């Protein structure tokens, strides 16, 4: 049973560039949430997708956008990168049908902005 997968593992970008991160949820899950984890901090909620729509959003600017595909996989896009966007980006999946708050996390993408 494949768990949550994310790609790429690491990424280095320059200020002002744009980046796309990808996530495939655990088999049987239909909901994807994205988190940003800066060094020494807990994960911060960016947004959540199910049924291909953004359902909830945290306190992140519009430079952060996402998409969910019919196969439940998801992308996180960040435009006009800032140095402060350097962080570990975690994707978590869950199932609405199971009505559980437990989210399964992927290994993350380490983004460095120079």
């Amino acid at each position, binding site marked *: 049973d494949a768990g949550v997968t994310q790609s790429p593992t690491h990424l280095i970008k320059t200020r002002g560039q744009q980046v796309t991160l990808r996530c495939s949820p655990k088999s049987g899950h239909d*909901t994807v*949430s994205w988190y940003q984890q800066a060094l020494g*901090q*807990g*994960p911060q909620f960016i947004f*959540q997708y*199910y049924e291909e729509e953004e*359902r909830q959003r945290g306190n992140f600017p519009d430079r952060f956008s996402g998409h969910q595909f019919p196969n439940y996989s998801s992308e996180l896009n960040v435009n006009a990168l800032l140095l402060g966007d350097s962080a570990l980006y975690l994707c978590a999946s869950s199932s609405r049908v199971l009505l559980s*708050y437990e989210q399964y996390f992927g290994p993350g993408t380490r983004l460095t902005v120079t």
Partner: protein
Amino acid sequence: EDKVVQSPLSLVVHEGDTVTLNCSYEVTNFRSLLWYKQEKKAPTFLFMLTSSGIEKKSGRLSSILDKKELFSILNITATQTGDSAIYLCAVATGSGGSNYKLTFGKGTLLTVNP
């Protein structure tokens, strides 16, 4: 704004010691409290607590929730070097149905020395 506070932020103990990690919260629309262990990248699920006063146990780890005083503790007995990790507390909040998000604390960095 939802707030989750963990203490201590870091802890160094010797193998065999017992540790207690604390998590307090101030949130709107509480649904559940979850504990995760983060060793390298992906947080892994430990416990989910929804009702007050009911202890959840898994081997040497146990946790309990107090919804009146708005806190939870995670106990680890007979610690081992493999318990060294960041322990994250998260609170699930939402207005109802399957719309919810996780708010994390900063985590407690536990180091167990041989």
